[in-house]
Every structure is written in structure tokens, then in C-alpha cells.
């Protein structure tokens, strides 16, 4: 990899876009061109549809694309995790087969890690992968899968060795979702949305060459996937709105965004929507109620403090300083904020907190807040798990004595799932 200066890079991107960008092209066609040129995923290796650019420089490429109004490669959803995992652990065959579909957006991915029987304990996965007649036969049940109902492939964590200890008996697979052994059901939540799926695998088949990494190394690989997920959480799940320009490629991009984002329309509400408190209080005529003012101010205090704490963490990491504790408490703080906001919105809405849908004065938004905030303290690691992490990793307090990691997994007590 030869060094390249920022200016050189900028002019290269501009040159390429000047020569090739045309908003009236189809999205797929354009992304084929990006794959060929390496400008879609410039930090991918040169041999694999990229340009071998350091990760830190991709922001510069993105900037130039933005200035041009040029659409980039497909980057939303699980696909980026799939690509990162395959690039790091996959075989050439796997790279050959999947990377292009990932970046052009023509193929969609989902992640089959969580199971109904193990909850926060991801390594407790009990989905079986048995090797029979040269193929892996998969049986088990996964849950909390986003977009499984329109995914083409899945990153799958399954148990291949029941005599090994918990974390050593798992292996990592790429599962073709389009086969009779795979059944996808939507999982409706208490707020009426269905953002997740349950996936049932009954003698589903994975070809031998679609196993990723070493046998028994599944947990390790899954950990890197999860690390990418946490790192990318901000960008992958941010509320991309696209652009409203009229040309064909923008229209196609808007549709793509809408599909990926569909499960997330209620996500802003699960945060408690602190941003609406003052506005709603004024609209409901209770802005002068001293008790409600206290509730609003209390909620705002923790919300703003949490926001500033996150920005302190970001500033520290941007300055290259070692990250202090302030970086680890955001998830937990979000739960507290959401809970407080829920109660405050309830008091502001008064009797109308009993209503929902079009009866709700804020067009259903307040009602959706009231039944969505419980998700924030569960999804992506419960509050309890967060507190474990904070106390053990940040405060260096002793780990809980484990009784599930020192014996063959088949001897570890676990839930029976129907």
C-alpha cells in the first residue's frame, strides 16, 4: 500500500466522480461501477473490490461523494458486519461469492446469534450444527433477528461440539435463507410494531465450505462481529433520510433506505423523546404547572447530562486520549432518561395518556413513547448486563463466579425451548 496524501485522494475521487457519476443511472449499475473501481468500499483490500485505503481516510472519500451528491455503496444493516467478518475470517471462495452482493445492495443479510433459550447469554446458544454426509445440518431457533424476512443470507452461530466448554463448542456459518428448512416468523412487540423475527431451522443445510474460520472458533469470530456492530451502531442505525432529489438513483436509494429503516420507525420513541417535553407541556397547557415543571427539569437534567457525557467521551477519543469511564455509561444512562421521560410525558398528557393512535394529541407519538421505552433497557444488552460490564471492566471489580464455563456444555443447566 503506497501512502497517499489527503489532497491527492480528494482529487482522485473528484476525477472519478466527474467522469462517471450520473444520477440517472440505476442504483445497481452504479454500484457495479463502484465495485469495479474500488471507490465504493475504498478501505477494502485492492484484491477485493476496494483500494486498500486506511479506514481513517474513508471519511474523506465520503465527503467528496457528498459534495458531488453521489450515492455510495450499500452500507446499511447487517451487511457491513457480514463484510467485515468475511474479510477477516472468510475464505477466498466466500469473499468471491458474497462481497459484491453486499456492497451493491443486491443481497441482504441478517444475523442469527440470539436464542430464546439464552437471552443476554449469547454464548449459551444451543442451535445444533451436525456434520452429516459432507454437509452441516442445522436445527434450532433464533430470535431478535432484524430483517430476516427479506434476508438472503445469515451469519449463523451454532454449536458443533457439545463436549467442549461453552465458548469453545460454537462454530460460525453462512446460512442461505432461501431453503425449506428455514422458517421466518415476525415477532410482534408490545407497542404493536414487528421489528424482529424468530427464525426456526429444521434440518436446514449449510454446505461444508460455508463454514467460517476454524471449527470451535465461532464465539471468537462472533465477538469480532459484535465489536463491529457496537462500533458501527451510530452510523448503521442512524436515521438516514436520503435526499429528496428527483433523479432515478435517488429514488432507488430512498426505497432502499425505507426498507432497511422500516423496523426502526419507533426507535426514536423508545428513547423517551426528551426533545418533545417542553413543546408538549406548552401544547397541553401545563407548562406553568410547578410539579410538572420539576418533572420536566429533572428529566432534562439527566438527558442533557447524558448527552454531554457522550460528547465528552467522543472528544476524548478524537483527541486520542485514553477513554475514561464516561464512554461506558451511555447505554445505561439512556435507560434512565427514557424511563424518566416516559413518566413525565405521562403527566404532561394527563388523561390523554390513556389514549393511543389518532386519539393521542401528538399523532400517536406520545402513546408510542409510553409503550416503547421499556425496550431501551433490554435491547442490545440489558441494564443489568451494562452494570456488570461497567463494574467489571471500568471499575475492575471481581467477576461473578461462573459455573457454566468450566464443564462440557451438555452438562450446563439451560432452558428448554418449545
Amino acid at each position, binding site marked *: 500500500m503506497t501512502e497517499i496524501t489527503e489532497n491527492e485522494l480528494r482529487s482522485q475521487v473528484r476525477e472519478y466522480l466527474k467522469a462517471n457519476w450520473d444520477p440517472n443511472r440505476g442504483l445497481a449499475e452504479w454500484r457495479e461501477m463502484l465495485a469495479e473501481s474500488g471507490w465504493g468500499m475504498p478501505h477494502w483490500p485492492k484484491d477485493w473490490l476496494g483500494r486498500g485505503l486506511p479506514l481513517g481516510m474513508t471519511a474523506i472519500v465520503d465527503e467528496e461523494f457528498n459534495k458531488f451528491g453521489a450515492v455510495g455503496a450499500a452500507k446499511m444493516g447487517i451487511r457491513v458486519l457480514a463484510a467485515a467478518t468475511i474479510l477477516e475470517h472468510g475464505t477466498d471462495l466466500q469473499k468471491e461469492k458474497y462481497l459484491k452482493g453486499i456492497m451493491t445492495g443486491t443481497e441482504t443479510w441478517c444475523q442469527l446469534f440470539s436464542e430464546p433459550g439464552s437471552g*443476554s447469554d449469547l454464548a449459551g446458544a444451543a442451535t445444533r450444527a451436525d456434520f452429516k454426509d459432507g454437509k452441516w445440518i442445522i436445527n434450532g431457533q433464533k430470535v431478535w433477528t432484524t430483517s430476516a424476512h427479506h434476508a438472503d443470507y445469515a451469519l449463523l452461530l451454532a454449536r458443533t461440539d457439545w463436549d467442549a466448554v461453552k465458548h469453545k463448542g460454537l462454530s460460525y456459518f453462512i446460512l442461505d435463507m432461501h431453503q425449506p428448512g428455514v422458517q421466518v416468523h415476525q*415477532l*410482534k412487540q*408490545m407497542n404493536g410494531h414487528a421489528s424482529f423475527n424468530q427464525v426456526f431451522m429444521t434440518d436446514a443445510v449449510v454446505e461444508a465450505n460455508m463454514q467460517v474460520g476454524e471449527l470451535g472458533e465461532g464465539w471468537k469470530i462472533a465477538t469480532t462481529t459484535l465489536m463491529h456492530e457496537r462500533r458501527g451502531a451510530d452510523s448503521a442505525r442512524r436515521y438516514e433520510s436520503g435526499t429528496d432529489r428527483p433523479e432515478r438513483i435517488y429514488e432507488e436509494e430512498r426505497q432502499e433506505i425505507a426498507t432497511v429503516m422500516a423496523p426502526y420507525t419507533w426507535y426514536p420513541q423508545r428513547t423517551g423523546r426528551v426533545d418533545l417535553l417542553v413543546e408538549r407541556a406548552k401544547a397541553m397547557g401545563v407548562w406553568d404547572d410547578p410539579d410538572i415543571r420539576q418533572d420536566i427539569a429533572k428529566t432534562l437534567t439527566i438527558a442533557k447530562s447524558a448527552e454531554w457525557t457522550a460528547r465528552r467521551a467522543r472528544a476524548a477519543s478524537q483527541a486520542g486520549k485514553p477513554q475514561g469511564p464516561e464512554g461506558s455509561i451511555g447505554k445505561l444512562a439512556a435507560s434512565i432518561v427514557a424511563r424518566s421521560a416516559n413518566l413525565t410525558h405521562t403527566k404532561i*398528557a*394527563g388523561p390523554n395518556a390513556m*389514549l*393511543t393512535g389518532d386519539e393521542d394529541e401528538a399523532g400517536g407519538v406520545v402513546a408510542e413513547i*409510553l409503550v416503547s421505552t421499556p425496550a431501551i433497557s*433490554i435491547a442490545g444488552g440489558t441494564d443489568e448486563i451494562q452494570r456488570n460490564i461497567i463494574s467489571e471492566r471500568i471499575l475492575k471489580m471481581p467477576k461473578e463466579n461462573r459455573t457454566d464455563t468450566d464443564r462440557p456444555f451438555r452438562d450446563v443447566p439451560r432452558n428448554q425451548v418449545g
Partner: protein
Amino acid sequence: MKFSFSEEQDEFRTALRRFLQAKSPTTEVRKQMQMDQGYDPGLWRQMCEELALASLHIPEECGGAGFGIADLAIACEEMGRALLCSPYFGSVVLAATAIREAGSDDQKRHFLPGFASGETIGALCAVEGRGGWAADSISMSAEKSGDAFQLTGTKSHVVDGMTASLLVVVARKPDGALGMFIVDASDNTVSRKPQNSMDPTRKLSTVSFAKTPAVLLTADNSNEAYERTLDIALACLASEMVGGAERLREDALEYVSMRMQFGRSIASFQVTKHKAADMLLDVELAKSAAYYAAAAIDDGDTDARGVVALAKAGASDAYIQTAVHAVQMHGGIGFTYDNDTHLWFKRAKASEVFLGDANQNRERMLQNWGDNS
């Protein structure tokens, strides 16, 4: 009996709990809550005819059992526990109580027997818009029309308003004080529209009146009859809420006791244990207040109003706190529609503000606080 129940009361509770376990499992709750009517008329008939539940606090001379509010509250607690879909709260606790508190002897003898037998289903129309239940939020005025009155305007948040045959409407008399008025729900000047309720197990509606003929309940000339109605309803609601909270607490405990994580029972984690202990504390404290409040009304305590408001404020906080904990203890599964926790969560949420939220009831409490409470 502020601190204990009689043997008869214990037996009544046991029988009712058994009955509701059989008749109102959550499969049935889910079925009823999806329907417009929102309850099973067959079950209602059985409740009224076999168990005489609608007659509890209606005076004997009006066809009732003549029991006290403590007994009514036991029924509400068990219904809250079972999340029974029924017009009980709207008709018996709100509408019948209003007539009991505001009606003349003749009026009571005329209207209440229908409530006691369950044939009449009533609803109390009090709230206007987003105004809430407080007396000073009610401004609809009743126009004098010959010997009778006429009502015009719209009431909202009417519990069981769609299914009621008889409406009790709270409105201002020409002298400015609140009166309660009887209206025939089938009168063609009355129009009703269901409201989309967060808690589908308790149906709400708006009811509009356009020069609707109305009969004033005449026993009381002040706001007091309405305030007493609120007191009784608040005490019953507090009991209903602690019933629901206890059920949530028990179910969550059962769930964590059954489930394994990291190779051990979730119930063996110290934070789970301590949370369960805190939940017990929350529910037991709220329960004690609810029991005390209902008995304080029966005992005619001068500070009953303050105590009742305390009970509702306590129940508001305890119920939603318990519901939040219960979802959390279930983890992801607790946030799904198929798990039953959210059914009570939504009841908790709606109950939080029903008849006034915790802030408002705390203020009501202090305004009516006895020196020796």
C-alpha cells in the same frame, strides 16, 4: 377493619379469585380486548346473577347487598389481578356510586336495582377534553328546561361509555355547583364514539349531548356528591391497581425462578433477588394504603379523602414501577406482544392518570390531610 379482613371477606376473595382464574385467563382477556364491546355478556350475567358482584355496595333497600366499600374494593382488586374485561368499574364503581351518593331515596330506589341486578349498565360522564376528573375542570352547564334540564356538549374518557344504557353526567347547575344528571343513553340527541384506548381492556369513549333531556339527582346540593363518588372510585381504583401489581410481581418472580442464564437460575442472581424484594415492598406498601383507604371511607373517617388520595398516588407509582420491573425481569420476551406482561403494563400506564395522576392526588391528599393521620 383497616388492617385485616373478616373471614367472610377472605372467603369472598378466595371464591372470586377462583372464579376469575377460570373465567378470565389471559386468552380470554386477549379475545375480549380485541372486540368493540370489550366484554363477554354471558360472563357478566354470571357475575351478577351467581356472584351478585354488581350489588355489593348498593343499599339493601335498592336491591343491593348493602356491603361497604372495603368489599367493593376486594372485588376490584381481584378483577385488577385477573385483568377482567368487564363494565364493572364504569357501571358499578362509577355510575352506580354516583347515584348512590347523589340520588334522592326515590331516585335510588328507581335506578339502583337495575345496577344491582346487572341489567343496567351505566357510565359516568365527567371529563371534558383533556381536563381530567377534578371538579374545577368541569364546565359543561345544564340548562333549565321547565322542570327538567338539558345538556349540551361533549364528555370524553368515559369508561364503558359505548355499552352503557344509562349515563350519569356531571355538569354545572344554574347555581354553579356541580350536579349529576341522569340521561338515557339511547336518546337520539346522544352520540357516542369509541376512543382508541392505550389499555384495550378498558374501553373509553366520547359522549356528546345536544339539548339532551336530563334528570338531576337531587339529594345533594354541593359538589360533595361528586367528590364522594371520586373518593370511592379512587379507593376502588387503588385496590384494582394493587391487584394488578401483585399479579405482575408474582408472574415475574415465577418467570425468573424458572429461567436459566449463564448456567444458573436467573432468580439466583443477587440483583434479581434484591429487585424482587423491592417489588414486594412496593406492592405491599401500596396494598396497605389501598386497604386502609377503603376502610376509612366505610368508617366515615374525617380524613378519608386525604387517605384515599394517598392510596391512589401510592398505587400509581407502585403499579407502573412494578410493571417496568416486570418487563425488565422478563428481558426481551417481556417486550413482546405474545407475552402477557404488557397487558398489565398498559393497564398500569392508563391507571397512572385515570382519576388524576400521582401529583394531582398528592395535592388532593395534602388539602385533605388530617392532623392526626
